[in-house]
């Protein structure tokens, strides 16, 4: 019944926003809200008269759902890390940090970040859609939630807003919007923060929030495993801690288990490419193994599988490298693309102390090379076809 009322409401105000209506300049925005509530009643015109149930909204929402385990765990971990390091953790709530208080703490810190990301990003998307007179494309649904998940919890909200704006405009819209960009927008945002405000993005003073106040950038001291490794300290966290995710790090990238849950969702639904996911790990493993064999310093001697559970490797492999727009598009190209991401990520981590986390740069680098990889793969197919044509011509001449 309510559904019908809503439908009637949309039908009633639709003429106002349609062409010739008073608010026709807000047409895309209206369409965005309408199609959010109701899948459109459009029917096929020709060709395939039936269509698959899936659309871009469905695809994107499935990815968002797959991100939920990592997000929820990340929220809890924000509170948990503070409870481990803080001296004045609210004891009135009990000596041990109760799990729900940790979650609440993290929720209060995360929610404003997510809100800022969506408001800024969607605002820009809506504006561009409006200017270009097309529908609102759903690409930012995923980008908007990933950005707050891959930055330190103490990132000031104004920096986050700037980064999101930069990513959406320079990373995506200038190339034509969703589906046309060549760099992963979420990583563009992170790279923007990383190079513009390095003090807020690395070191020991950014990973653990001191206060529940989302506007506070006060941090407690606590280094990530990679931070320790790059400064030559042996890692303080055990492998098990890193798999579970109870270590400092970017807000939602720490738990391999939560990420694995998301990965299963993406693989079962078939949205993410298993080729890319698998090959990133193979590439990272191979490079890690190579360093194990060389073994020139402590970092090189670190067992290769540590790279999978440290920092953003798993999150990047599952959610960022698999972005279909910016990855290689051919199946063969996806293998090459993934292998190189994994290999470069480990290479950067071990050999470049200036950038403790190599995953972001590695994926961005391969984003740039993805079209080249595809070009090589497709050229092979083209050459095969030309050869076949020549062979046939030869036959005809003989005949």
């Amino acid at each position, binding site marked *: 019944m309510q559904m019908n009322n809503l439908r009637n409401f949309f039908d009633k105000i639709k003429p106002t926003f349609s062409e010739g209506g008073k608010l026709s300049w807000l047409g895309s925005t209206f369409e965005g809200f309408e199609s959010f*509530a*109701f899948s459109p009643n459009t029917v096929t015109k020709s060709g395939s*008269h*039936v269509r698959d149930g899936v659309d871009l*909204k469905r695809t994107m929402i499935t990815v968002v759902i797959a991100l939920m385990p990592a997000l929820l765990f990340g929220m809890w971990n924000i509170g948990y890390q503070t409870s481990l390091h803080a001296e004045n953790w609210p004891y009135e709530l009990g000596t041990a940090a109760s799990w729900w208080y940790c979650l609440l703490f993290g929720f209060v810190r995360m929610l404003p970040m997510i809100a800022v990301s969506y408001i800024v990003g969607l605002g820009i998307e809506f504006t561009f859609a409006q200017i270009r007179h097309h529908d609102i494309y759903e690409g930012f649904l995923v980008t908007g939630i990933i950005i707050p998940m891959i930055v330190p919890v103490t990132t000031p909200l104004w920096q986050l807003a700037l980064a999101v704006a930069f990513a959406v405009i320079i990373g995506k819209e200038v190339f034509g919007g969703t*589906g046309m960009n060549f760099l992963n927008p979420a990583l563009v945002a992170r790279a923007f923060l990383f190079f513009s405000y390095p003090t807020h993005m690395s070191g020991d003073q950014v990973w653990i929030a001191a206060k529940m106040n989302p506007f506070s950038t006060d941090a407690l001291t606590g280094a990530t495993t990679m931070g320790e490794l790059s400064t030559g300290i042996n890692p303080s966290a055990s492998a098990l801690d890193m798999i579970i995710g109870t270590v400092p790090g970017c807000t939602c990238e720490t738990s391999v288990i939560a990420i694995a849950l998301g990965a299963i969702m993406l693989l079962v639904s078939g949205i993410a490419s298993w080729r890319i996911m698998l090959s990133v790990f193979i590439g990272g493993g191979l490079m890690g193994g190579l360093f194990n064999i060389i073994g020139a310093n402590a970092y090189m001697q670190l067992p290769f599988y540590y790279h999978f559970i440290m920092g953003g490797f798993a999150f990047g492999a599952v959610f960022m490298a698999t972005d279909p727009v910016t990855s290689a*598009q051919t199946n063969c190209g996806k293998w090459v693309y993934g292998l190189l991401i994994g290999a470069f990520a480990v290479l950067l981590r071990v050999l470049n102390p200036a950038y403790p986390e190599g995953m972001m740069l590695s994926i961005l680098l391969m984003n740039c090379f993805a079209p080249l990889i595809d070009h090589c793969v497709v050229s092979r197919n083209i050459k095969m076809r030309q050869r076949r044509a020549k062979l046939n011509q030869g036959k005809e001449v003989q005949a």
Partner: protein
Amino acid sequence: MSNIINIKKGLDLPVEGAAALRITDARHIATYAMKPTDYVGLVPRLLVAEGDAVAAGDALFCNKEDERIRFTAPVSGHVKAVVRGEKRRLLAVVVEKDESAARPAQLSGDLKEQMLQCGLWTMLRQRPFGCVPNPNVKPKAIVISCFDSAPLAPDYDFALQGREDDLCHGLEALASLTDGTLYACFRPGQRMARSVEQLSKSSKKDIQVRYFNGPHPAGNVGTQIAALCPINKGEVVWTMNPQDVAVLGHLVTTGEYRPEKVIAVAGPQIKNPHYYRIIAGAAVESIAKSQTLNPDYPQMVEAQPMQGSRLISGNILSGTTIAADSFIGGYDSLLSILPEGDYYDFMGWLMPGLQKFSFSRTFWTGFVPKWLHCIYPEMPQCLTPKFDTNTHGAWRPLVVTGSFERVFPFDIYPMQLIKACIIGDIELQENLGIYEVEPEDFALCEFIDTSKTEIQPVIRQALEILRKEAL
């Protein structure tokens, strides 16, 4: 080379309502039409006027560019109407059947001459471009797909029951039109294949039988050509529907042009879908009106016949929408009836959507494993996928990659070729293999496409530009 070719990539849509093996004779239908719009790139020249008496096999119009290619009346009678559309474009020539006017058409000359005269030539289609072939050119091969794997497709074993001899004679006649091989393609275990196997052994001509295993589009002739004799630039392969081959067989043995065929009338909400024996080009109105529809089918507002339904001449993946008072298409052996899906779907992108079919496994129907179907062949109604013409979403840029490849059994990069067609880069299209494909080969890509791009029209447009350049 093995006789059996396995096609792994593809998709069989679980559409209910395939035609039961039962034939109603509908040769009494009174009106027939030839539609120039059924033939790719045809510029027709009208040869008759309203009221003219015509016999079966008399030309109604011909190809302006090659007047030997004539499109003829399927029945004897008189021209009832010449239907024109915008800019006086010829849409159809309607013939009212009148048996009294019947007189046998006099055919003379060799096989090619006879085919051209009676209009059977136009049942040949050439690859690339999908148009009626030029009589002066000899194809490098002829490929006949003797089964159809599309959803709700007719069973040619059943449709051609008792006409196996006609089919064999037709195949033998066709084989004389090429210096290359004639391939007849079947599903393994098809009954009709036996007589053709015998023919291929006894005939002096190069007739070969091949079997194709696997999901749709294994039965698409494009898939078979790609596996047997891929087309290079400048080469031509011909194809023909097996029912038309049987008409040709009848022509060469008796000298009589009798364009009869059996069509399946099928669709998910039809109560008793079955076959009809018709003469080519028959009006579908009486057939469509005689169908009773299942009122329980979702989105069926009322059980009124044809209210809110779409008639499709051909299959639901690549057929043509026709009006209820229109005629079956020249090449088609299937009349699909599909519910229109012009409804709003509350939060359709978020809801479980248990009855929405999807290849992507973002819906339940996508990941029902095959073995579950084997254990429970009868899924409860609430979990059986329902099909209609709703697009299930609006157009978006192409974002998802790697899915087309799973339903596209060609050695071609589908996404890259589609993009080359969209941007109109002819050289790239040629390099990527545009000559090997027809729009129908992309039907499944279009079906599964997340971005709801209209891929088949894009391919057709690109092919038309190439065809005109090749002229």
